[in-house]
């Protein structure tokens, strides 16, 4: 896998996801990683964008590192359409033969990627946390790093023969590249040539936005996450007060979400959100792997729990062992005092 193979366009593709013309954060994160890989492998970093009235989104992809954008614009492609998107992407992949295709492991991406991969009969690795080039059995390969067993272990996966190799990457793990309006890229307009059978078996007829109950987690600088241990306090008021004092947003573990303290959109962990804030504060969560995998990228982690043996202290920078009922008011006072 050193650079361009026979019959290949010599490209890495990032399949961009957009909703209402706005590019998903994970697509930009993938451009950052794609840029790095494209340099190491001497490949061109291209992106593929489908939608309706998404020209500005195409520019955003260029500003974030895409050297080329294949742009499908069509009224009927405004919403994600399972059959149509899968066919168009499969056709253009067959035509250009990219080496690697990166897709965000979003709700849509996790459906679209396996559909395209199955059509192409190629390999697909799910929800990676990172990718790097490494020598495997004497050949440089793209190594897909996949968290397994609740995040306890990391598998290294390769796709040795089939091309393109397709990988989905978990949102919120890789850093977003800097936006630069001076970046130049080629916008390649592709005529979608839709067919009746693209919509005859299935069609998305509406996209309904549901406002999250809380503030979106991903852009937050500080996240305060409540675990089951907050039960002892009866409610989340102290966690909210703490977040208020330091300008953070409140999130929850799976048990806290199941208890109805926070919405699904505010749940941290393998089946929820991944965040990497400047400061992550874990309150009363023991530190199960499927939870900790959702914030491993945080710059600094503070954990409070009453059990000194809790695994959370193994993945935290700063640990306070103690009763939340005592520690939290004290922490709030201390932070108020020092501003």
């Amino acid at each position, binding site marked *: 896998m050193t650079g361009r193979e026979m019959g290949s366009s010599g490209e890495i593709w990032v399949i961009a996801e957009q909703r209402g013309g706005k590019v998903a954060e994970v697509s930009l994160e993938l451009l950052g990683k794609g840029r790095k890989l494209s340099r190491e492998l001497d490949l061109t970093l291209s992106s593929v964008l489908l939608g309706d009235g998404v020209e500005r989104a195409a520019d955003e992809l260029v500003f974030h590192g895409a050297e080329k954008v294949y742009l499908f614009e069509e009224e009927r492609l405004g919403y994600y359409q399972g059959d149509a998107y899968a066919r168009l992407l499969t056709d253009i992949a067959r035509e250009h033969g990219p080496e690697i295709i990166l897709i965000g492991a979003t709700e849509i991406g996790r459906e679209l990627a396996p559909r395209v991969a199955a*059509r192409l009969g190629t390999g697909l690795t*799910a929800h990676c946390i990172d990718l790097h080039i490494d020598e495997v059995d004497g050949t440089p390969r793209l190594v897909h790093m996949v968290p397994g067993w609740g995040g306890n272990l990391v598998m*290294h996966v390769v796709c040795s023969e089939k091309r393109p190799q397709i990988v989905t990457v978990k949102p919120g793990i890789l850093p977003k590249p800097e936006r630069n309006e001076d970046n130049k890229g080629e916008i390649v307009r592709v005529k979608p040539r839709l067919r009746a059978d693209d919509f005859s078996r299935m069609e998305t007829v509406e996209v*309904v936005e549901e406002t999250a109950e809380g503030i979106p987690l991903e852009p937050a600088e500080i996240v305060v996450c409540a675990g089951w241990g907050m039960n002892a306090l009866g409610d989340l008021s102290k966690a909210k007060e703490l977040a208020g004092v330091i300008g953070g947003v409140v999130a929850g573990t799976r048990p806290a979400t199941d208890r109805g303290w926070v919405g699904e959109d505010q749940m941290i962990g393998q089946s929820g959100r991944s965040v990497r804030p400047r400061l992550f504060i874990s309150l009363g969560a023991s530190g199960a792997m499927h939870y900790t995998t959702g914030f491993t990228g945080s710059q600094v982690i503070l954990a409070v729990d009453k059990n000194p043996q809790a695994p959370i202290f193994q993945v935290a*920078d700063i640990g306070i062992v103690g009763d939340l009922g005592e520690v939290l008011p004290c922490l709030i006072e201390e932070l108020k005092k020092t501003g």
Partner: protein
Amino acid sequence: MGLDILVCIKQVPDPDHFSEVRLDARTGRIVREGIPAIINPLDRNALEEALRAKAKVSGKVTAISMGPPQARKALEEALAVGADRGVLLCDTAFAGADTLATATALFCAVRKLGRFDLIFCGNETVDSGTAQVGPQLSELLDIAQVSGVREVSYTGDNTLEVKRVLEHGYMRVRLKLPALLCVTKDTNQPRLPTVQSIMEVAGKEMITWTATDIGAPREHVGLKGSPTCAVGVYESKSGRRREIMQGSTEEKVRRAVTRLRELGAI
């Protein structure tokens, strides 16, 4: 005339015991001895949705699983809550399959079983959690498919409409049968077996098939049929400071805040 409904089920290790999974430092293999096996939780939702479709429209529910001989227990559980027939794909030729090779084995079995109007899968498993086998199977069968389904409405003889989850919202998708739906936990509340339904298990059909039985080419299933393969497993290491604050509550908190400031976190 009713619906022919298929439910794909996987037997998985109980996630409550995941922290007991260790790497054998000598062999580099995953040690998972003694971890109890359960039906993948979302596959119970898939089964429930299949049983509801049968109740609503009439039909027959087949539960299928690929796995070792003990995966038969998962299928028996499916029969105990109301599935009509169980199919176990069991062969060493299936071992080491990635998601494409798994979907291929299921595809071969479906081809042998005949045509299905509706196929339900759990949206993802708790062990590998790829959410890939359902969509891949639908592509091999060349039928419509939706993942992340949280609500199913039967709108006509051959049509249905689903709500499919998105980040901060949902999509309404109209589908024509045959279709494959991957369901989430919000779809329904899975039922429990009754004394009556458990009694009925004995009279139900349970099939075990090998790769040869379903005409699955050996180069397309199991490890051989897998385009991807794991080349290493590593324990995820935390590069964290792991500083535990000492003293009274006030002292611990004061020290923690001082450290957070030194680290530039606040």
